């Protein structure tokens, strides 16, 4: 198992697997996070998965109490992370059904996008709603999922001038990525559709509709 461990800040460290976007590596990331949650060290504050890395945030003083022989809290965390039995970690099992996101393909940039890609609206809808996307990580905004698996035909650069107010529920594309704005926010993605579904809800236990490892499908309405 190849990995590198680096300090992020003086109270956080990141374990990097091979830096590429793949379901296989992201599975390792999620299995590692699951292991850390079951086997936490004293002083661990938070463990966060990304595409191909895992970051732990910790309390320096509490970590140092674990082992007075280590020179730094980071040294302890580094040792802890490198001792994770990576080869024995079980592949995460995804029990969740595919999460369907109903989308009205009527985004404000739709005409522009169709023109740029030389597609009919029907073709774009088909291309965008056909794949089962994978949630690789969360970030940017509460409930914002980085989805992988978009058809390369839909690749377009982001806007040169980001919008100040992208509407909540806007579905956008940029590069090889597609995503949904969970709250109103500035943003530079090309907006192709709109969903009414709530992506982040403080009143639900899981808060975020989408979570790393989930499978997602867009359904045209």
């Amino acid at each position, binding site marked *: 198992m190849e990995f590198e461990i680096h300090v992020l800040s003086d109270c956080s460290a990141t374990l990097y697997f091979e830096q590429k976007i793949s379901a296989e590596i992201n599975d390792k990331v999620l299995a590692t996070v699951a292991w850390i949650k079951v086997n936490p060290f004293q002083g661990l504050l938070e463990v966060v998965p*990304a595409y191909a890395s895992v970051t732990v945030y910790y309390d320096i003083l509490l970590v140092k109490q674990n082992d007075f022989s280590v020179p730094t809290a980071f040294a302890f965390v580094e040792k802890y992370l490198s001792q994770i039995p990576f080869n024995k970690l079980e592949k995460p099992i995804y029990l969740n059904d595919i999460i369907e996101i109903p989308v009205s393909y009527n985004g404000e940039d739709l005409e522009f996008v169709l023109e740029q890609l030389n597609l009919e609206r029907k073709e774009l809808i088909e291309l965008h709603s056909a794949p089962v996307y994978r949630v690789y990580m969360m970030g*940017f905004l509460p409930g914002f999922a980085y989805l992988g698996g978009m058809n390369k035909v839909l690749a377009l650069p982001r806007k040169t001038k980001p919008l100040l107010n992208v509407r909540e529920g806007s579905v956008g594309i940029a590069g090889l990525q597609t995503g949904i704005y969970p709250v109103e926010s500035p943003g530079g993605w090309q907006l192709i559709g709109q969903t009414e579904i709530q992506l982040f809800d403080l009143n639900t236990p899981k808060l975020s509709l989408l979570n790393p490892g989930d499978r997602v499908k867009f359904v045209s309405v």
Partner: protein
Amino acid sequence: MIFLKPGILTSIQDIGRQGFQDKGVNPSGAMDTLSMRLLNILLGNKEEEAVVEFHNPSPTVRFEEYALFAIGGGNFNPALNNKAISPWKIQQAKPGDMLSFGKKEKGERGYIAVKGGFQIEDVLGSQSTNLKAGFGGLKIDKGSTLSLNLKNGQLYSASEKVKETPKTVNVKMRPPFELKQEIRVIAGKDLSCLDQASRDSVFSQCFIITTHADRMGYRLEGDRLNLKDGGEVISSSVAFGTIQLLPDGQVIILMADHQTSGGYPKVANVISVDLPLLAQLSVGQHITFREISTEVAESVFEKQEREINKFKSAVNLYS
């Protein structure tokens, strides 16, 4: 208390919202956590009690209830009923008293802390205002009101004890304000991806804080930094103080309202102890970076925490 003038970007902040970055929830929290903690300790509160964070132009507040409060952070020349009061000192207010601020002298952010804290609902374990997500804490507008947790009777007994306490925060402990600030950093994962000249330049040149400096991040202006190759990195988690290299060769320092992840190379990270200094710097100010080891960064942090604990013990003796 009621806000007669809201000031600009005045908000309620505590130590931040931890534990939800895997849902994309950024931590928020006070920019200058040192000032926040010291004021709370002074008042006998728990360190992470929520406070009002304000900027220039500053707010004007009328107290609606009896209160014990303290002002800290930058020096905004506080006044109670138009009479100057000392910051970093416990003050008393009665209903109708007006708290206002004069010319900003030093620093960028001020804090108002009250004994017992404000009545604000916890959202995901924190009272911090998440402006981007639109939840938590309170964004202060004209006419916004805040109720205090401690009511008259409880405050009366508290104020009796206050007479005895070390009523001020030692000058040595407060964040210093220099026109040119040296900020200590530890090397980031991608520092080695810079070409040699740029690598040297990070620690020899003087950066200027541009007008794009807010609670999310400070964009700096300096000599262009170049990568040896590429520059595309796959998004990973970032932290308060992460210094990222943007495609135009300039750097940005991520601050309290930073996003949870970033896809730009990480050049360095500001050490925890120097984040409050950074939080008090203004647009146009100059900074230089000095690299220190993780070991030194941790020992500087431990030293600071020992000092804070000493202060806490001194206050606790009287309460």
